[in-house]
């Protein structure tokens, strides 16, 4: 006896490439299905397509005298360099800095928002918020927007009652406490210089030079990083901008051109 499939009939138009799978069952689903073979992961691919690659290099590390924060200043949209003068180190308040990696708008807005929250905490509690507290506030906000397309890879660096503090916070909702971080597409190159040159007891000048050199090296090798290498220092009295050098000039400073002997041209008689 032939099985009665009349109940499965539908008038919806045929979509997608899976009608062949239903041998014997002459029907298609009554809802539209996406034009893909991978039904489970195609959404992930779509997010990956719009996900902005964090084209930048930022770094921060704690040493004996405080925290050193440095970043490049290039903004790129694919292969197009949209700006060479982006401020990637954001001043949350006079004793706390945040770095920008990922979506520029996301970073700027949420750092500004964090600055407001820190100030409100100060007014309500008559004392400054700790770096721990500030980073946790930001991490909780980013966690609540998880999966909605925010792109933020930031480091919160500051000096509070417990001394120097450094946290890495990202838009996936992660938050890590640490002494040395580098974020962005140029971070592997920056880590190379940073890891080999780092010592806990450096002077401020040595630490600044290490930070500068790490950023320079990342801009040298990574196409998405460049512009100006800014170096900030956070000490017991707050942050201070130490330098902002064009990486092109830094290149010739680190790799001076030897004047080659030019063959004397025969002078015209």
């Amino acid at each position, binding site marked *: 006896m032939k099985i009665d499939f009349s109940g499965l009939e539908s008038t919806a138009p045929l979509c997608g490439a899976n009608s062949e799978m239903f041998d014997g069952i002459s029907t298609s689903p009554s809802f539209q299905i996406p034009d893909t073979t991978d039904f489970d992961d195609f959404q992930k691919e779509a997010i990956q397509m719009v996900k902005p690659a964090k084209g930048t290099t930022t770094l921060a590390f704690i040493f004996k005298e405080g925290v050193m924060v440095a970043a490049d200043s290039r903004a790129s949209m694919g292969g197009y360099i949209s700006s060479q003068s982006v401020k990637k180190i954001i001043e949350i308040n006079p004793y706390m800095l945040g770095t920008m990696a990922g979506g520029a708008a996301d970073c700027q807005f949420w750092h500004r928002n964090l600055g407001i929250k820190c100030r409100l905490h100060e007014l*309500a*509690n008559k004392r400054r918020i700790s770096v*721990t507290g500030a980073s946790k506030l930001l991490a909780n906000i980013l966690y609540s927007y998880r999966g909605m397309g925010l792109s933020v890879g930031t480091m919160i660096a500051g000096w509070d009652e417990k001394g120097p503090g450094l946290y890495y916070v990202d838009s996936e909702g992660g938050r890590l406490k640490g002494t040395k971080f580098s974020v962005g597409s140029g971070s592997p190159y920056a880590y190379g210089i940073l890891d080999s040159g780092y010592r806990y007891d450096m002077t401020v000048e040595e630490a600044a030079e290490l930070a500068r050199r790490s950023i320079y090296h990342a801009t040298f090798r990574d196409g998405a990083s460049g512009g100006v290498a800014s170096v900030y220092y956070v000490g017991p009295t707050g942050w201070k901008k130490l330098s902002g050098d064009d990486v092109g000039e830094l290149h010739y400073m680190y790799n001076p051109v030897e004047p080659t002997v030019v063959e004397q041209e025969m002078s015209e008689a």
Partner: protein
Amino acid sequence: MARYDRAITVFSPDGHLFQVEYALEAVRKGNAAVGVRGTDTIVLGVEKKSTVKLQDSRSVRKIVNLDDHIALACAGLKADARVLINKARIECQSHRLTVEDPVTVEYITRYIAGLQQKYTQSGGVRPFGLSTLIVGFDPYTDVPSLYQTDPSGTFSAWKANATGRNSNSMREFLEKNYKETSGQETIKLAIRALLEVSSFFSKSDVSCVSTAMHDLIVVESGGKNIEVAVMTKEHGLRQLDEAEIDAIVAEIEAEKAAAEAAKKAPARES
């Protein structure tokens, strides 16, 4: 969810919030509580009604901790106290979670006072009928603090304060006898203040007394009528047991007797 929208606490024509004032009246009828701040010790003491025979006294703790470094004593409606204490304990942990730091005494006092105020300005609820004494050490700075809140939602810091029955007499005593103390001296001062009033209750249940401070009545059973807890930075909150309290009471009695004798001696000489 349906909520009541009619307020119970409303202004009177001459600017009083009578519900709040009635709540203060409830506080005035509650058991006496005293708090004294020393340089390294803070002491909380409450008057205890004589133990009912069948009751398990351990379940009636009047001095509780809100966190490892904060303790609270109150005067007034104990059921209201339970609700407030539970909310405060949750807030202490919530603060630890969001800023990874323990609360300061001022923060949790502000929270409790804010809660008490909210209930004077919401629909369908009455104010909490209790005043609290909150003590503790701030994290990192180790500064000892004593705060008081009341049903209206105001709070302030004190060197020493009392609330509940006969709080005026106790406060007067403290004003006369307060000085910066530490350790055992702070405990003695708190117990002396309590003895000034709790003694009246072990003898007779008169609630309004107007005797002067120097008219001292000897306490026979001081240790049983008061509950004392001491907070230090190292050991946190420690409840004194009856034997300890009795020993301190005996010391206080001896000092009083010596002072009396000294007063009489020169008089005789002249």
